[in-house]
Protein backbone atom coordinates (compact mmCIF):
# COMPACT_ATOMS: atom_id res chain seq x y z
CA UNK A 1 0.00 0.00 0.00
CA UNK A 2 2.78 2.35 1.04
CA UNK A 3 4.59 1.47 -2.17
CA UNK A 4 1.58 2.53 -4.22
CA UNK A 5 1.24 5.83 -2.36
CA UNK A 6 4.95 6.54 -2.80
CA UNK A 7 4.61 5.74 -6.47
CA UNK A 8 1.82 8.30 -6.82
CA UNK A 9 3.74 10.95 -4.91
CA UNK A 10 6.91 10.40 -6.89
CA UNK A 11 5.12 10.53 -10.23
CA UNK A 12 2.52 13.14 -9.39
CA UNK A 13 3.65 15.53 -12.13
CA UNK A 14 3.55 12.82 -14.73
CA UNK A 15 0.11 11.67 -13.63
CA UNK A 16 -1.21 15.23 -13.65
CA UNK A 17 0.21 15.70 -17.13
CA UNK A 18 -1.24 12.40 -18.35
CA UNK A 19 -4.71 13.25 -17.05
CA UNK A 20 -4.75 16.75 -18.53
CA UNK A 21 -3.31 15.56 -21.83
CA UNK A 22 -5.96 12.87 -22.11
CA UNK A 23 -8.71 15.39 -21.39
CA UNK A 24 -7.46 17.73 -24.11
CA UNK A 25 -7.06 14.95 -26.66
CA UNK A 26 -10.60 13.79 -25.85
CA UNK A 27 -11.87 17.33 -26.40
CA UNK A 28 -10.01 17.46 -29.71
CA UNK A 29 -11.38 14.14 -30.91
CA UNK A 30 -14.87 15.23 -29.95
CA UNK A 31 -14.64 18.27 -32.24
CA UNK A 32 -13.66 16.01 -35.12
CA UNK A 33 -17.11 14.47 -35.05
CA UNK A 34 -19.66 16.40 -37.02
CA UNK A 35 -21.30 18.81 -34.61
CA UNK A 36 -22.55 16.95 -31.59
CA UNK A 37 -23.05 19.19 -28.65
CA UNK A 38 -19.64 20.56 -28.08
CA UNK A 39 -18.42 21.13 -24.59
CA UNK A 40 -15.91 23.78 -25.58
CA UNK A 41 -17.19 26.30 -28.07
CA UNK A 42 -16.77 29.99 -28.74
CA UNK A 43 -20.55 30.38 -28.70
CA UNK A 44 -20.60 31.23 -25.01
CA UNK A 45 -21.12 34.30 -22.92
CA UNK A 46 -17.49 35.27 -22.29
CA UNK A 47 -15.89 34.66 -25.68
CA UNK A 48 -18.94 35.94 -27.53
CA UNK A 49 -18.79 39.11 -25.48
CA UNK A 50 -15.08 39.61 -26.16
CA UNK A 51 -15.51 39.05 -29.89
CA UNK A 52 -18.47 41.44 -30.03
CA UNK A 53 -16.35 44.05 -28.29
CA UNK A 54 -13.56 43.60 -30.83
CA UNK A 55 -15.99 43.74 -33.72
CA UNK A 56 -17.52 46.95 -32.53
CA UNK A 57 -14.09 48.47 -33.05
CA UNK A 58 -12.90 46.72 -36.22
CA UNK A 59 -16.25 47.11 -38.01
CA UNK A 60 -15.49 50.72 -38.81
CA UNK A 61 -12.49 49.80 -40.93
CA UNK A 62 -14.64 47.87 -43.40
CA UNK A 63 -17.60 50.21 -43.57
CA UNK A 64 -16.78 51.49 -47.05
CA UNK A 65 -16.53 48.05 -48.55
CA UNK A 66 -19.61 46.78 -46.74
CA UNK A 67 -21.67 49.71 -47.98
CA UNK A 68 -20.54 49.02 -51.50
CA UNK A 69 -21.66 45.40 -51.18
CA UNK A 70 -25.02 46.36 -49.76
CA UNK A 71 -25.53 48.85 -52.59
CA UNK A 72 -24.74 46.16 -55.12
CA UNK A 73 -27.17 43.80 -53.48
CA UNK A 74 -29.87 46.44 -53.35
CA UNK A 75 -29.38 47.06 -57.03
CA UNK A 76 -29.74 43.36 -57.77
CA UNK A 77 -32.88 43.06 -55.68
CA UNK A 78 -34.35 46.16 -57.30
CA UNK A 79 -33.78 44.68 -60.74
CA UNK A 80 -35.50 41.48 -59.72
CA UNK A 81 -38.41 43.38 -58.28
CA UNK A 82 -38.85 45.18 -61.59
CA UNK A 83 -38.81 41.89 -63.42
CA UNK A 84 -41.58 40.60 -61.21
CA UNK A 85 -43.66 43.69 -61.76
CA UNK A 86 -43.38 43.27 -65.50
CA UNK A 87 -44.17 39.60 -65.65
CA UNK A 88 -47.91 39.20 -65.08
CA UNK A 89 -47.98 35.44 -65.03
CA UNK A 90 -45.10 33.41 -63.62
CA UNK A 91 -44.90 30.53 -66.00
CA UNK A 92 -41.89 28.90 -64.47
CA UNK A 93 -40.17 29.58 -61.21
CA UNK A 94 -36.77 31.07 -61.74
CA UNK A 95 -34.08 29.28 -59.79
CA UNK A 96 -33.23 32.51 -58.03
CA UNK A 97 -36.80 32.98 -56.86
CA UNK A 98 -37.23 31.23 -53.57
CA UNK A 99 -40.62 30.00 -52.42
CA UNK A 100 -41.56 31.08 -48.94
CA UNK A 101 -40.90 27.79 -47.26
CA UNK A 102 -37.59 29.42 -46.39
CA UNK A 103 -37.24 31.92 -43.62
CA UNK A 104 -34.37 34.38 -43.47
CA UNK A 105 -32.46 35.95 -40.61
CA UNK A 106 -29.57 38.39 -40.66
CA UNK A 107 -26.49 38.23 -38.48
CA UNK A 108 -23.07 39.76 -38.13
CA UNK A 109 -19.84 37.77 -38.20
CA UNK A 110 -17.94 38.53 -35.02
CA UNK A 111 -15.13 36.03 -35.47
CA UNK A 112 -13.88 34.40 -38.63
CA UNK A 113 -10.93 32.13 -39.24
CA UNK A 114 -9.72 30.69 -42.50
CA UNK A 115 -6.11 29.67 -41.94
CA UNK A 116 -6.72 26.37 -40.14
CA UNK A 117 -7.91 23.06 -41.54
CA UNK A 118 -11.19 23.14 -39.61
CA UNK A 119 -12.45 26.67 -39.72
CA UNK A 120 -15.36 28.11 -37.77
CA UNK A 121 -17.15 31.44 -37.69
CA UNK A 122 -18.95 33.00 -34.75
CA UNK A 123 -22.16 34.99 -35.30
CA UNK A 124 -23.85 37.47 -32.98
CA UNK A 125 -27.27 35.77 -33.06
CA UNK A 126 -28.30 32.75 -31.01
CA UNK A 127 -31.23 30.80 -29.63
CA UNK A 128 -32.87 34.03 -28.49
CA UNK A 129 -33.20 35.07 -32.13
CA UNK A 130 -34.52 31.58 -32.98
CA UNK A 131 -31.32 30.39 -34.60
CA UNK A 132 -31.03 26.61 -34.61
CA UNK A 133 -28.36 24.04 -35.43
CA UNK A 134 -28.17 23.12 -39.14
CA UNK A 135 -29.38 26.41 -40.57
CA UNK A 136 -27.60 27.41 -43.78
CA UNK A 137 -25.48 30.56 -43.78
CA UNK A 138 -24.98 32.67 -46.91
CA UNK A 139 -23.70 36.12 -47.71
CA UNK A 140 -24.90 38.34 -50.53
CA UNK A 141 -22.35 36.70 -52.83
CA UNK A 142 -22.59 33.02 -52.01
CA UNK A 143 -22.70 30.30 -49.40
CA UNK A 144 -20.67 30.50 -46.20
CA UNK A 145 -21.41 27.41 -44.10
CA UNK A 146 -23.78 25.62 -41.74
CA UNK A 147 -24.63 26.48 -38.12
CA UNK A 148 -22.91 23.93 -35.91
CA UNK A 149 -23.62 25.12 -32.38
CA UNK A 150 -25.82 27.71 -30.67
CA UNK A 151 -25.87 29.36 -27.28
CA UNK A 152 -28.36 31.90 -26.02
CA UNK A 153 -26.86 34.91 -27.78
CA UNK A 154 -24.26 33.51 -30.17
CA UNK A 155 -23.81 30.73 -32.66
CA UNK A 156 -20.87 29.06 -34.38
CA UNK A 157 -20.82 28.14 -38.04
CA UNK A 158 -18.87 25.36 -39.67
CA UNK A 159 -17.37 27.22 -42.60
CA UNK A 160 -17.20 25.64 -46.07
CA UNK A 161 -13.45 26.01 -45.48
CA UNK A 162 -13.50 23.02 -43.17
CA UNK A 163 -12.23 19.57 -44.06
CA UNK A 164 -15.40 18.10 -42.48
CA UNK A 165 -17.71 20.18 -44.63
CA UNK A 166 -19.64 18.41 -47.41
CA UNK A 167 -22.15 20.46 -49.36
CA UNK A 168 -24.36 19.24 -52.15
CA UNK A 169 -23.61 21.31 -55.26
CA UNK A 170 -24.33 21.11 -58.95
CA UNK A 171 -23.01 22.31 -62.25
CA UNK A 172 -25.54 24.91 -63.35
CA UNK A 173 -25.52 24.20 -67.10
CA UNK A 174 -25.67 20.42 -67.08
CA UNK A 175 -27.37 19.85 -63.73
CA UNK A 176 -24.89 17.16 -62.61
CA UNK A 177 -24.51 16.82 -58.86
CA UNK A 178 -21.41 16.53 -56.71
CA UNK A 179 -20.22 17.48 -53.27
CA UNK A 180 -18.20 20.50 -52.33
CA UNK A 181 -15.16 19.93 -50.10
CA UNK A 182 -12.06 21.88 -49.18
CA UNK A 183 -8.44 20.73 -49.49
CA UNK A 184 -7.04 23.33 -47.00
CA UNK A 185 -4.78 24.98 -49.56
CA UNK A 186 -6.46 28.24 -50.58
CA UNK A 187 -9.28 30.04 -48.74
CA UNK A 188 -10.75 31.22 -52.04
CA UNK A 189 -10.80 27.86 -53.82
CA UNK A 190 -12.96 24.87 -52.88
CA UNK A 191 -13.14 21.46 -54.57
CA UNK A 192 -16.15 19.87 -56.20
CA UNK A 193 -15.89 16.08 -56.41
CA UNK A 194 -18.04 13.24 -57.74
CA UNK A 195 -19.21 15.07 -60.85
CA UNK A 196 -19.72 12.25 -63.38
CA UNK A 197 -17.45 12.10 -66.36
CA UNK A 198 -20.19 12.69 -68.90
CA UNK A 199 -20.83 16.20 -67.63
CA UNK A 200 -19.53 18.77 -70.08
CA UNK A 201 -17.49 21.15 -67.99
CA UNK A 202 -15.85 24.31 -69.15
CA UNK A 203 -13.64 26.82 -67.38
CA UNK A 204 -15.75 29.67 -66.03
CA UNK A 205 -18.96 27.64 -65.64
CA UNK A 206 -21.10 28.48 -62.63
CA UNK A 207 -21.49 26.11 -59.70
CA UNK A 208 -24.64 26.47 -57.57
CA UNK A 209 -26.11 24.60 -54.60
CA UNK A 210 -28.07 21.47 -55.46
CA UNK A 211 -31.52 20.95 -54.04
CA UNK A 212 -30.72 17.59 -52.44
CA UNK A 213 -30.17 18.87 -48.94
CA UNK A 214 -32.66 20.28 -46.51
CA UNK A 215 -30.24 23.06 -45.55
CA UNK A 216 -29.72 25.22 -48.62
CA UNK A 217 -32.35 26.09 -51.22
CA UNK A 218 -31.48 25.08 -54.76
CA UNK A 219 -29.58 27.49 -56.97
CA UNK A 220 -27.59 29.60 -54.51
CA UNK A 221 -24.36 30.81 -56.06
CA UNK A 222 -21.11 29.12 -55.00
CA UNK A 223 -18.39 29.89 -57.55
CA UNK A 224 -16.96 29.34 -60.99
CA UNK A 225 -14.94 26.45 -62.41
CA UNK A 226 -11.26 27.27 -62.18
CA UNK A 227 -9.77 24.08 -63.59
CA UNK A 228 -10.72 20.42 -63.58
CA UNK A 229 -9.26 16.97 -64.21
CA UNK A 230 -10.44 13.37 -63.96
CA UNK A 231 -9.66 11.57 -60.73
CA UNK A 232 -7.65 8.34 -60.41
CA UNK A 233 -10.40 6.01 -61.56
CA UNK A 234 -11.24 8.23 -64.53
CA UNK A 235 -14.93 8.14 -63.64
CA UNK A 236 -15.42 11.42 -61.87
CA UNK A 237 -14.17 14.95 -62.26
CA UNK A 238 -12.18 16.77 -59.60
CA UNK A 239 -13.02 20.44 -60.03
CA UNK A 240 -11.37 23.46 -58.44
CA UNK A 241 -14.05 26.06 -57.77
CA UNK A 242 -13.15 29.72 -57.40
CA UNK A 243 -15.59 30.95 -54.74
CA UNK A 244 -17.64 34.09 -55.34
CA UNK A 245 -17.39 34.87 -51.66
CA UNK A 246 -14.25 36.34 -50.24
CA UNK A 247 -14.21 34.07 -47.19
CA UNK A 248 -11.48 36.19 -45.60
CA UNK A 249 -13.68 39.30 -45.41
CA UNK A 250 -17.19 38.45 -44.21
CA UNK A 251 -19.25 40.95 -42.26
CA UNK A 252 -23.00 40.61 -42.76
CA UNK A 253 -24.52 37.22 -43.45
CA UNK A 254 -27.98 35.73 -43.83
CA UNK A 255 -29.24 32.55 -42.21
CA UNK A 256 -31.77 30.39 -44.00
CA UNK A 257 -34.24 28.18 -42.24
CA UNK A 258 -36.09 25.54 -44.22
CA UNK A 259 -39.43 25.29 -42.43
CA UNK A 260 -40.05 21.86 -43.90
CA UNK A 261 -36.64 20.43 -42.97
CA UNK A 262 -37.85 18.56 -39.88
CA UNK A 263 -40.75 17.09 -41.78
CA UNK A 264 -38.51 15.86 -44.61
CA UNK A 265 -35.91 14.44 -42.23
CA UNK A 266 -38.54 12.65 -40.15
CA UNK A 267 -40.08 11.12 -43.24
CA UNK A 268 -36.69 9.95 -44.51
CA UNK A 269 -35.84 8.51 -41.13
CA UNK A 270 -39.13 6.62 -40.99
CA UNK A 271 -38.50 5.13 -44.41
CA UNK A 272 -34.98 4.13 -43.36
CA UNK A 273 -36.24 2.51 -40.19
CA UNK A 274 -38.87 0.53 -42.07
CA UNK A 275 -36.31 -0.83 -44.48
CA UNK A 276 -34.10 -2.17 -41.74
Amino acid at each position, binding site marked *: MQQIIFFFIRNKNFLLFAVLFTIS*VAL*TVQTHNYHNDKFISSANFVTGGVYTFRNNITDYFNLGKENQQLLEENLLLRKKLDQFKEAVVFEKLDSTFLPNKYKYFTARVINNNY*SKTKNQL*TLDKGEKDSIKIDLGVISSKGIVGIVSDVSENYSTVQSILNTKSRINAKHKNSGHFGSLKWDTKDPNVAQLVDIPRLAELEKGDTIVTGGRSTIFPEGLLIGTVNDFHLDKDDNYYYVNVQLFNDMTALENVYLIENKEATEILELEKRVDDEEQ
Partner: protein
Amino acid sequence: MKNSDIIINIVRFIVLVFLQVLMLNNINLLGYINPYLYIFFILMYPLDGNKGLLIFLSFLLGLSIDIFEDSGGVHAAACAFIAYIRPVVLKYSFGVSYEYNSVKIKKADPMERLTYIASLVFMHHFVMFALEIFSFKHIFLLLKSTLFSGVFTIIVIVCTMILFNRKST
Protein backbone atom coordinates in the same frame (compact mmCIF):
# COMPACT_ATOMS: atom_id res chain seq x y z
CA MET B 1 8.05 32.34 -5.48
CA LYS B 2 7.77 35.87 -4.24
CA ASN B 3 4.54 37.80 -4.08
CA SER B 4 5.54 40.08 -6.91
CA ASP B 5 6.26 37.04 -9.07
CA ILE B 6 2.74 35.76 -8.52
CA ILE B 7 1.17 39.05 -9.56
CA ILE B 8 3.44 39.37 -12.59
CA ASN B 9 2.51 35.86 -13.71
CA ILE B 10 -1.23 36.41 -13.28
CA VAL B 11 -1.08 39.64 -15.29
CA ARG B 12 1.08 37.97 -17.92
CA PHE B 13 -1.40 35.10 -18.25
CA ILE B 14 -4.38 37.40 -18.86
CA VAL B 15 -2.59 39.85 -21.13
CA LEU B 16 -1.13 37.06 -23.27
CA VAL B 17 -4.53 35.34 -23.75
CA PHE B 18 -6.18 38.55 -24.91
CA LEU B 19 -3.24 39.58 -27.08
CA GLN B 20 -3.33 36.16 -28.71
CA VAL B 21 -7.05 35.94 -29.47
CA LEU B 22 -7.65 39.57 -30.36
CA MET B 23 -4.53 40.30 -32.40
CA LEU B 24 -2.05 37.56 -33.11
CA ASN B 25 -4.56 34.97 -34.32
CA ASN B 26 -5.63 37.34 -37.06
CA ILE B 27 -2.23 37.99 -38.61
CA ASN B 28 -2.42 35.03 -41.04
CA LEU B 29 0.81 35.86 -42.83
CA LEU B 30 0.81 34.21 -46.30
CA GLY B 31 -2.58 32.80 -45.42
CA TYR B 32 -1.73 30.49 -42.54
CA ILE B 33 1.28 31.63 -40.48
CA ASN B 34 0.46 32.95 -37.01
CA PRO B 35 2.78 33.55 -34.06
CA TYR B 36 1.69 31.79 -30.87
CA LEU B 37 3.19 34.21 -28.40
CA TYR B 38 1.04 33.03 -25.48
CA ILE B 39 3.48 30.20 -24.64
CA PHE B 40 5.79 32.99 -23.47
CA PHE B 41 4.03 32.45 -20.13
CA ILE B 42 5.29 28.86 -19.91
CA LEU B 43 8.79 29.84 -21.00
CA MET B 44 9.09 32.60 -18.40
CA TYR B 45 7.47 30.77 -15.48
CA PRO B 46 9.87 31.00 -12.53
CA LEU B 47 12.45 28.21 -12.53
CA ASP B 48 11.88 27.51 -8.84
CA GLY B 49 8.09 27.48 -9.14
CA ASN B 50 5.94 24.44 -8.47
CA LYS B 51 6.05 22.10 -11.47
CA GLY B 52 2.62 20.57 -10.93
CA LEU B 53 1.11 24.04 -10.76
CA LEU B 54 2.83 24.97 -14.01
CA ILE B 55 1.35 21.95 -15.80
CA PHE B 56 -2.12 22.84 -14.55
CA LEU B 57 -1.79 26.55 -15.41
CA SER B 58 -0.47 25.72 -18.87
CA PHE B 59 -3.45 23.47 -19.45
CA LEU B 60 -5.77 26.33 -18.43
CA LEU B 61 -3.86 28.74 -20.68
CA GLY B 62 -4.21 26.44 -23.66
CA LEU B 63 -7.86 25.76 -22.90
CA SER B 64 -8.63 29.50 -22.81
CA ILE B 65 -7.13 29.86 -26.28
CA ASP B 66 -9.07 26.78 -27.44
CA ILE B 67 -12.38 28.19 -26.26
CA PHE B 68 -11.82 31.34 -28.28
CA GLU B 69 -10.51 29.46 -31.29
CA ASP B 70 -13.10 26.66 -31.33
CA SER B 71 -10.30 24.16 -31.71
CA GLY B 72 -11.31 21.55 -29.13
CA GLY B 73 -8.27 20.85 -26.96
CA VAL B 74 -5.29 21.20 -29.28
CA HIS B 75 -3.68 24.16 -27.54
CA ALA B 76 -4.39 22.69 -24.10
CA ALA B 77 -2.69 19.40 -25.03
CA ALA B 78 0.35 21.11 -26.54
CA CYS B 79 0.73 23.43 -23.54
CA ALA B 80 0.42 20.65 -20.97
CA PHE B 81 3.02 18.71 -22.95
CA ILE B 82 5.66 21.43 -23.04
CA ALA B 83 5.02 22.33 -19.39
CA TYR B 84 5.72 18.71 -18.47
CA ILE B 85 8.80 18.46 -20.67
CA ARG B 86 10.21 21.86 -19.61
CA PRO B 87 12.60 20.62 -16.86
CA VAL B 88 14.27 18.26 -19.34
CA VAL B 89 14.68 21.05 -21.90
CA LEU B 90 16.04 23.37 -19.20
CA LYS B 91 18.62 20.78 -18.28
CA TYR B 92 19.98 20.25 -21.76
CA SER B 93 19.94 23.91 -22.73
CA PHE B 94 21.43 25.46 -19.59
CA GLY B 95 23.29 22.47 -18.18
CA VAL B 96 22.71 21.05 -14.71
CA SER B 97 23.45 24.38 -13.06
CA TYR B 98 19.86 25.51 -13.48
CA GLU B 99 18.87 23.16 -10.67
CA TYR B 100 20.81 25.27 -8.18
CA ASN B 101 18.88 28.41 -9.14
CA SER B 102 22.03 30.02 -10.46
CA VAL B 103 20.51 30.61 -13.89
CA LYS B 104 18.19 33.43 -14.87
CA ILE B 105 16.49 32.97 -18.23
CA LYS B 106 16.75 36.67 -18.97
CA LYS B 107 20.47 36.83 -18.23
CA ALA B 108 21.62 33.50 -19.68
CA ASP B 109 23.94 33.13 -22.61
CA PRO B 110 22.01 34.10 -25.81
CA MET B 111 22.80 30.81 -27.56
CA GLU B 112 21.59 28.71 -24.62
CA ARG B 113 18.50 30.86 -24.40
CA LEU B 114 17.73 30.39 -28.08
CA THR B 115 18.09 26.61 -27.78
CA TYR B 116 15.65 26.64 -24.89
CA ILE B 117 13.06 28.80 -26.70
CA ALA B 118 13.37 27.02 -30.05
CA SER B 119 13.05 23.51 -28.55
CA LEU B 120 9.90 24.33 -26.61
CA VAL B 121 8.32 26.31 -29.45
CA PHE B 122 8.84 23.58 -32.04
CA MET B 123 7.59 20.86 -29.68
CA HIS B 124 4.50 22.92 -28.87
CA HIS B 125 3.76 23.66 -32.53
CA PHE B 126 4.31 20.09 -33.59
CA VAL B 127 1.89 18.64 -31.02
CA MET B 128 -0.64 21.38 -31.70
CA PHE B 129 -0.66 21.08 -35.50
CA ALA B 130 -0.56 17.28 -35.31
CA LEU B 131 -3.74 17.26 -33.22
CA GLU B 132 -5.40 19.98 -35.27
CA ILE B 133 -4.73 18.39 -38.66
CA PHE B 134 -5.15 14.86 -37.30
CA SER B 135 -4.35 12.94 -40.45
CA PHE B 136 -1.28 11.31 -41.96
CA LYS B 137 -2.36 12.43 -45.38
CA HIS B 138 -1.42 16.00 -44.59
CA ILE B 139 1.98 15.30 -43.01
CA PHE B 140 3.64 17.79 -45.33
CA LEU B 141 1.20 20.51 -44.29
CA LEU B 142 1.96 19.64 -40.66
CA LEU B 143 5.72 20.02 -41.09
CA LYS B 144 5.35 23.19 -43.13
CA SER B 145 3.04 24.83 -40.58
CA THR B 146 5.28 23.79 -37.68
CA LEU B 147 8.39 25.19 -39.33
CA PHE B 148 7.02 28.52 -40.54
CA SER B 149 4.79 29.32 -37.58
CA GLY B 150 7.58 28.12 -35.27
CA VAL B 151 10.13 30.51 -36.76
CA PHE B 152 7.64 33.36 -36.59
CA THR B 153 6.83 32.57 -32.94
CA ILE B 154 10.52 32.41 -32.00
CA ILE B 155 11.16 35.81 -33.59
CA VAL B 156 8.21 37.37 -31.77
CA ILE B 157 9.23 35.79 -28.44
CA VAL B 158 12.85 36.96 -28.73
CA CYS B 159 11.65 40.48 -29.61
CA THR B 160 9.32 40.49 -26.60
CA MET B 161 12.16 39.38 -24.33
CA ILE B 162 14.48 42.10 -25.59
CA LEU B 163 11.74 44.69 -25.24
CA PHE B 164 10.93 43.84 -21.64
CA ASN B 165 14.54 43.25 -20.57
CA ARG B 166 15.43 46.80 -21.48
CA LYS B 167 12.61 48.16 -19.41
CA SER B 168 13.54 46.26 -16.25
CA THR B 169 17.22 47.18 -16.28
